């Protein structure tokens, strides 16, 4: 009994220790928490500065900033030299406050940084202006898996005096904690930037920094989904609104400045390329003669890779002969989703298996009046890739009718010789398409050809005797062997039932 109590006491101490450790850890790491925010309270609008319905206070401040910039830019050392791009304004109304965000054309000293002007008007018509600098640590990152463009870096918020057009000294954020909202807009699939926002999620992101301004570690939206500045073209463009608090109380809405960054006022479907200093079509889109971005090649389930500037299949998929992305098989399997292709006649499943007495002829050990089926038939739809099971050397071959180009029997095929456990293993893949077959050194998992109907397979399918399949024959040191022994997916050689899927 005493031992038992001691045991519970030890467990209690252990849990207490873990809790303390976690508590301490929490203070040091970026803390990202989702908040339930009533989306009805947030209104996001986009408009041109020439729109007459603009708030007069906003217009007045903007006019002051513009005129002061022109008049004073050479007179005062600390004067602002704002070159406001007024062709687009993002207006966000939240909790009685309205913020207007505009892109600043000023060249920043930082290579990749960009500036926004924020004008904030509260419910009592009190107004403030800020410049927010977005300073990426690295270049904008492209995340291939969800095809989004993220920003990691620092945001510096500096209040400005729009009356005197001066930077307000010591007004930069010097807080230990900076928080902002991120409004994520997930678009319907398939999405071209500019599509409608299907679901919106608001997250409050808090960043811990030591004495400086908030260090942004939560994906920025500058390049990530704003309908004019980027956005995931296929899976999830998003529109970001963010606001920074200027004190330590990250729940105090009064101190939040909500903004939605504008990287560059590029037209819909384009993103600003800092290298070329041009607005360029975003992932998967190309510019047509009219200057519009059109989706003319990133289809078939592909994703645009910003680095390679190519449409590519997502991880775990490869392109088939029709340029669609299809599942890649396990290494060692010649096709995705390994399954025996049964004969549609009486032989059924056994007709697709190796060494079964299912063919008309002679020489089958179980039935001398029959011929064995040499190899296995694995289901594979027309056009789907066929993959090398092992590293080896590939050679192309074709069964022609003598003296002609008419294809017979096994059709177009690829033979691969591999060395496995010191044995020479030859796997031959039959009934492929003529083109895009591979010869020479190959690695396991390489595409060696595409499923066709060459040889007698086409006749067999059209008469309804079987379905599309790749026929595989195996020879080990020149002797007939069961290809199933060399697949990653394990199949019962007698029943054709999968006994151990590879994944």
């Amino acid at each position: 009994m005493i031992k038992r109590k001691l045991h519970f006491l030890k467990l209690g101490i252990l849990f207490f220790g873990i809790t303390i450790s976690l508590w301490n850890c929490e203070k040091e790491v970026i803390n990202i928490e989702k908040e339930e925010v009533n989306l009805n309270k947030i209104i996001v609008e986009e408009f041109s500065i020439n729109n007459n319905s603009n708030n007069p206070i906003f217009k007045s401040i903007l006019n002051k900033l513009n005129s002061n910039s022109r008049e004073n830019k050479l007179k005062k050392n600390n004067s602002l030299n704002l070159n406001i791009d007024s062709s687009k304004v993002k207006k966000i109304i939240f909790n009685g406050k309205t913020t207007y965000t505009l892109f600043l054309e000023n060249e920043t000293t930082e290579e990749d940084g960009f500036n926004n002007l924020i004008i904030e008007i509260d419910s009592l018509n009190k107004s403030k202006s800020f410049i927010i600098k977005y300073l990426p640590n690295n270049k904008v990152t492209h995340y291939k898996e969800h095809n989004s463009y993220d920003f990691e870096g620092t945001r510096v918020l500096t209040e400005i005096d729009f009356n005197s057009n001066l930077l307000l000294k010591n007004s930069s954020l010097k807080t230990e904690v900076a928080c902002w909202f991120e409004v994520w807009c997930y678009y319907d699939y398939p999405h071209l930037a500019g599509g409608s926002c299907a679901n919106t999620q608001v997250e409050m992101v808090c960043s811990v920094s030591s004495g400086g301004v908030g260090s942004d570690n939560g994906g920025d939206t500058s390049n990530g989904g704003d309908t004019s500045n980027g956005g995931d073209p296929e899976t999830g463009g998003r529109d970001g609104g963010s606001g920074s608090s200027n004190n330590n109380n990250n729940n105090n809405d009064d101190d939040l400045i909500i903004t939605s960054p504008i990287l560059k006022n590029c037209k819909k479907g384009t993103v600003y390329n800092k290298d070329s200093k041009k607005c360029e079509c975003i992932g998967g889109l190309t510019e047509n003669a009219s200057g519009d971005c059109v989706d003319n090649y990133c289809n078939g389930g592909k994703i645009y890779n910003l680095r390679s500037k190519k449409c590519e299949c997502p991880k775990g998929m490869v392109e088939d002969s029709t340029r669609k992305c299809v599942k890649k098989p396990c290494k060692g399997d010649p096709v995705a989703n390994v399954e025996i292709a049964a004969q549609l006649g009486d032989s059924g499943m056994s007709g697709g298996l190796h060494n079964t007495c299912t063919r008309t002829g002679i020489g089958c050990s179980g039935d001398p009046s029959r011929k064995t089926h040499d190899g296995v038939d694995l289901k594979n739809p027309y056009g789907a890739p066929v993959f090398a099971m092992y590293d080896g050397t590939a050679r192309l071959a074709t069964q022609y009718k003598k003296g002609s180009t008419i294809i017979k029997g096994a059709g177009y095929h690829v033979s691969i010789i591999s060395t496995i456990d010191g044995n020479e293993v030859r796997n031959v893949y039959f009934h492929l398409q003529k083109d895009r077959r591979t010869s020479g050194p190959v690695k396991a998992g390489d595409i060696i050809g595409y499923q066709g109907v060459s040889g007698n397979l086409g006749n067999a399918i059209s008469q309804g005797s079987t379905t599309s399949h790749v026929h595989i024959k195996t020879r080990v040191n020149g002797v007939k062997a069961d290809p199933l022994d060399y697949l990653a997916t394990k199949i019962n050689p007698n029943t054709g039932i999968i006994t151990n899927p590879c994944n």
Partner: protein
Amino acid sequence: MKKIHLIITVIFISSYSCKAQLNTLNRTEYYNIKINDVTFQSLYDTNGDEASMKALFGSDLLYHYENDILIRKEFWKTGVYYFDFNSDEGDYYVPTNIDIESSSTTITVKGISVKLGDDKSIFGSLLLNTNTNSIIFVSETGTSSLAFKIDPFTNKIIKIEFYAF
């Protein structure tokens, strides 16, 4: 009750129409197929031997042997007929392709003698494979077929081909 009958009828018709339209030959019928006067049994019995084939089809039969990825023997008379025998390991050879290329060659199946250019009516009520517009005879294994392709406009037999898979 009427509804049930109707459903059963629809299912029956559907399953019938989905079924492969093939004319199955029993073993005797299959080995009794004749190319001119040579039965399939005799053809299989040659085991692809050159001398035996020439004894059946004439000494002017051309011959080619290949032993690479595939092991095969081809025999042909240009513009008349073509035979392709394949073997798994070089011991047993079975025909995998036969093309009849001339109306001078007669094929007899199920007692019906057919030549290129004949009208499809020669087959009477035998099943027409609508996918290929052919009269197809298959062995009991379902993996060897003799197909007579019909021209859809003239109803004439335009191709006679044997294939195994």
